[in-house]
């Protein structure tokens, strides 16, 4: 039995794009050659700016996006699911085991359903419970695990604040007893005081229910706090991958360094020494050749500018992988 729950091998996701019906079809390279392994029981972080492909990768792992090449394997206790060749019945089984928590708790909950119905819906759709009584029992159990007041189950979502709504979304994701959770920007829409509360809840649930998380966020300080391993994405590629402490204390890639320096410090005397990146993330339709970061790199090496260095991770210290361009091109 392997220690990994998810293995992502050379995954690419491309989308077809056609500006209008006479123009040529183009390909958007959303995710390029990703290799990651997510250990059982770990908190795997994925950071990057908008347009870096983090959500697409998360969806591909859940089987919600078509994978163009490569494969994703989910190692269950007794069985491996290969998402590229998965059958319809297997996919149904897989859905019970892998769930998603959405970003915006205001948009994710139907305003016309009571909280009880929202949480019970996956049980009914997946036919996990046999009768109403069993469903109610399961709903109450998971609601109290997510620290929801049981009296609230009869109310509608509009009566709740952002933090409570996010707890309802979490309860719905967990009700089918999944093993793997993709949390896509799950705290981005929340206030700081509530954000800390939800993060603590996710952490506690991991221990209690033996969960494995893929935590997608653009907020590095949040990722630093909850994740064990962090991958930094830029324009569809992973540019750096390391245990979070190592990544934050000893970043190697110039993009990671710039991201870290851009977090505004709450000490007014520590005026920001942000490594300013000029320009914006290029279009994924025609990414730069060679190193994808070269158009914004603050200190590109000679070979890098020429575009000779292909993207590829190399291991600089145990478990710390960096895109080779920033290591060899000095």
């Amino acid at each position, binding site marked *: 039995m392997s220690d990994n729950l998810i293995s992502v091998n050379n995954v690419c996701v491309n989308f077809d794009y056609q500006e209008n019906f006479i123009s040529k079809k183009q390909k958007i390279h959303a995710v390029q050659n990703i290799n990651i392994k997510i250990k059982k029981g770990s908190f795997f972080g994925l950071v990057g700016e908008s347009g870096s492909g983090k959500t697409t990768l998360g969806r591909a792992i859940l089987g919600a996006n078509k994978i163009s090449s490569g494969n994703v394997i989910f190692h269950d206790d007794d069985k491996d699911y290969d998402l590229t060749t998965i059958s319809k019945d297997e996919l149904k089984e897989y859905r019970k085991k892998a769930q998603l928590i959405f970003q915006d708790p205001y948009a994710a909950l139907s305003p016309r359903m009571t909280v009880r119905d929202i949480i019970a819906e996956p049980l009914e759709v997946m036919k996990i419970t046999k009768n109403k009584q069993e469903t109610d029992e399961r709903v109450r159990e998971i609601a109290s695990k997510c620290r929801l007041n049981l009296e609230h189950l009869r109310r509608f979502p509009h009566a709740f604040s952002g933090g409570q709504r996010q707890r309802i979304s979490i309860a719905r994701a967990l009700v089918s007893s999944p093993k793997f959770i993709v949390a896509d920007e799950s705290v981005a829409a929340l*206030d*700081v005081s509530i954000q800390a509360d939800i993060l603590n809840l996710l952490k506690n649930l991991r221990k209690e229910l033996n969960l494995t998380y893929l935590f997608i966020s653009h907020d590095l300080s949040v990722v630093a706090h909850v994740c064990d391993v962090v991958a930094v994405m830029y324009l569809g590629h992973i540019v750096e991958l390391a245990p979070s402490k190592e990544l934050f204390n000893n970043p190697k890639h110039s993009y990671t360094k710039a991201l870290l320096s851009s977090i505004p410090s709450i000490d007014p005397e520590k005026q920001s020494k942000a490594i300013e990146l000029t320009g914006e993330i290029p279009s994924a339709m025609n990414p730069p050749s060679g190193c994808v970061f070269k158009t914004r790199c603050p200190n590109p090496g000679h070979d890098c500018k020429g575009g000779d260095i292909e993207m590829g991770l190399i291991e600089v210290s145990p478990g710390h992988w960096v895109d080779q361009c920033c290591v060899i091109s000095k």
Partner: protein
Amino acid sequence: MEELLKINNLDVKFDTDEGRITAVENISLSVKQGEVLGIVGESGSGKSVTAKAIMQLNPGNTIYNDDAEIIIDGENVIKFTSKEDLMKIRGGKVSMIFQEPMASFAPAIKIGDQMVEQLLLHKNIKKDEAKTISLDMLTRVGITDTEKRFNQYAFELSGGMRQRAMIAMALSTMPKLLLADEPTTALDVTIQAQVLKLMKDIIKEYKMGVIFITHDLGVIAQTADQIAVMYLGCVVEKGPVNEILKNPKHPYTKGLIAALPDVNNLEAPLKPIPGNIPSPLERPTGCVFRTRCPHPTKEGKEGKIDMKLVEVEPGHWVDQCGAKCG
């Protein structure tokens, strides 16, 4: 230095189907020329309502108290009713930058036309002059290829570029006061760093007064001179930014600072503020923070202490209840 804006005893209430809601209660703030006032607080704390009161942009069911004053250049804008008077503030003396730049540009009108239109409304100039000013301003905020951008629509620009265009548009009429409502919240950190630097440079150059509204204490620390912390419609603490962030007195301010994930200390546990912000329909009497206060005094917990700011250090004001229990 000259005071640009003075808000005295402002209450803002809304008449709704469920009753009268208090959104802002007894706020007094002031902004001097060349000064940046940061307003922080959670959603529902009344930050945006305060900013909209200055522009008189709150909806029709808004009720202001009679003795409230919002004084800009010696005139009380709350008493303004005619369109001409309101035009003098909106986009004239005061400009506003909104959070979501996609929603604040008209989608079917070219960026350039929108910039020219507002200049023509507020300044007595010709169309080609307005275009020159707009193009200059776009260059000033770091947009390249301005002639091309001028003729594009909002959806053709990226998020960072749109927010720059929004800033250019807000500044082109040379307002005395700029209201920035969460201007960088929708942006990525690297773009946020670019936009903040740009705003700081421009504020310094034009010596305007700024109200910077955000929920991000880090952004406030990097930009503001003065800070006001709001909770449930009340200012619970205000003073110079250095003093407030280094030496917070109110338990809510302390809670906000403690809830931030600290990048320099990854081992530190995250400390949320317990409980939820109460609904404005169930506003606590007395100290508004008493339902979530971690260690309240006896009188404070029973709601016997009224909200009132007291000066604990020169320039550092704290709500009297919070000063006792904090």
